[in-house]
């Protein structure tokens, strides 16, 4: 995946964060989102390993051996940060205090089911925080390439892989499209200006309703 694609997705994802929210940034593309936020936007970044108020990824010289995020990167914290244990960290998630989470995906279904933790027989590193984030964040946005490396659709009528959580996805942001998951199916609300409608529809297995005010990004 090119840096350009990642950055395009992250830039669009950043626009979904509202002032004052508590937000979890999954590994991969979501970690780039802070680069595209207004510098004075008040928000609290949650990291599963017990951080509220995570800051930037630090340079080597400033790395603190006791301060990593859930992805293992050395980070800083912002003024007003708080550390807690792993139980309280996930209480925040399951208790409904996490306003927004960004996660990657292997597959997303028309109903908003998410599969991103296991490919039986091939990829089974464990669960981590994904199930709890997916099932309990008040809003879940998937940031992902629109297709697999082989060009196969990831946005499907039904997931073929074991689920992370059912009916959990609210929005999908890819390098080609922004798709909202509504109770009765998917709505294409934005397409990338580098692509066209036919391409998006061809690379998406799930049926897409096209929003009246379809815009580009």
């Amino acid at each position, binding site marked *: 995946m090119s840096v350009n694609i990642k950055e395009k997705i992250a830039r669009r994802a950043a626009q979904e964060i509202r002032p004052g929210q508590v937000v979890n940034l999954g590994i991969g593309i979501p970690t780039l989102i802070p680069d595209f936020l207004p510098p004075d936007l*008040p928000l609290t970044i949650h990291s599963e390993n017990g951080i509220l108020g995570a800051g930037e990824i630090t340079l080597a010289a400033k790395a603190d051996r006791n301060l990593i995020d859930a992805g293992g990167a050395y980070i800083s914290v912002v003024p*007003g940060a708080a550390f807690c244990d792993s139980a309280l960290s996930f209480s925040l998630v399951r208790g409904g*205090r996490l306003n927004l989470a960004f996660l990657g995906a292997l597959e997303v279904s028309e109903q908003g089911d998410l599969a991103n933790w296991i490919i039986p027989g091939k990829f089974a590193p464990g669960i981590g925080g994904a199930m709890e984030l997916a099932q309990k964040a008040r809003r879940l946005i998937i940031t992902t390439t629109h297709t697999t490396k082989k060009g196969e659709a990831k946005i499907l009528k039904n997931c073929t892989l074991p689920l992370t959580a059912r009916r959990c996805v609210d929005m999908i942001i890819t390098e080609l499209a922004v798709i909202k998951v509504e109770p009765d199916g998917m709505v294409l609300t934005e397409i990338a200006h580098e692509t066209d409608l036919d391409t998006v529809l061809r690379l998406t297995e799930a049926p897409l309703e096209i929003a009246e005010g379809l815009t580009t990004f």
Partner: protein
Amino acid sequence: MIDKTTTVSKALENVTCGMSVMVGGFGVPGTPFLLINGLLGSGADRLILIKNEANEAGLGVSLLLEAGRVSRLITSHLGLNSLAIAMMNKKEIEVNFYPQGILAEKIRAGGAGLLAIVTDIGINTILRREENVVQLDGREGMIEPALRANIALIHAAKADRAGNLVYEKSARNFNPLMATAADLVIAEAEEIVETGEIPPDQVHTPGAFVDHVVPIGELLPEYGVLKHHVR
């Protein structure tokens, strides 16, 4: 920067009749008297009150009971409030008693987004409820549902503007648990400091759990030492 400081009346403006309200405190320490006064002033009644005890007659949540605002009280012990016991006996309020640590765990489970805990406390007593009994590895336990509330009223010694809270001594008790277990969490604080002044390792309740912070200002007499408890 996030600033959650507000006034009692603003913080309580959406309180309505019939709501469930968790109130921190174990005796005087940790009881949010200022917020309780605000709740009393709001006029809301038919409240479901969740508190370790009912303070003492004429003090704290007992004022809510005495004013007829509480329909149900979920608690652990009323030994220091004979007035509350009398109201219970006259069936003016419904009272549900739980073992103190189980009440704490039910609230914590609510905050942790769990559905329930399974405990063997009271299993061989009149607390046993056959319909809740499950067998686990040959041991009997009872399913105790998690407990959440519409509102939690919290007392902190110190808060920053982002809502990070620090409690003092035995005033901690139920406060950090309740601060996770309600849809709207309101904390009063004796001291407000700028965000960044509380060392992140010393925060007891992270601000992400807290909706409103109310500065107490000058302490009301209720917060003082109870003379009749001094030897």
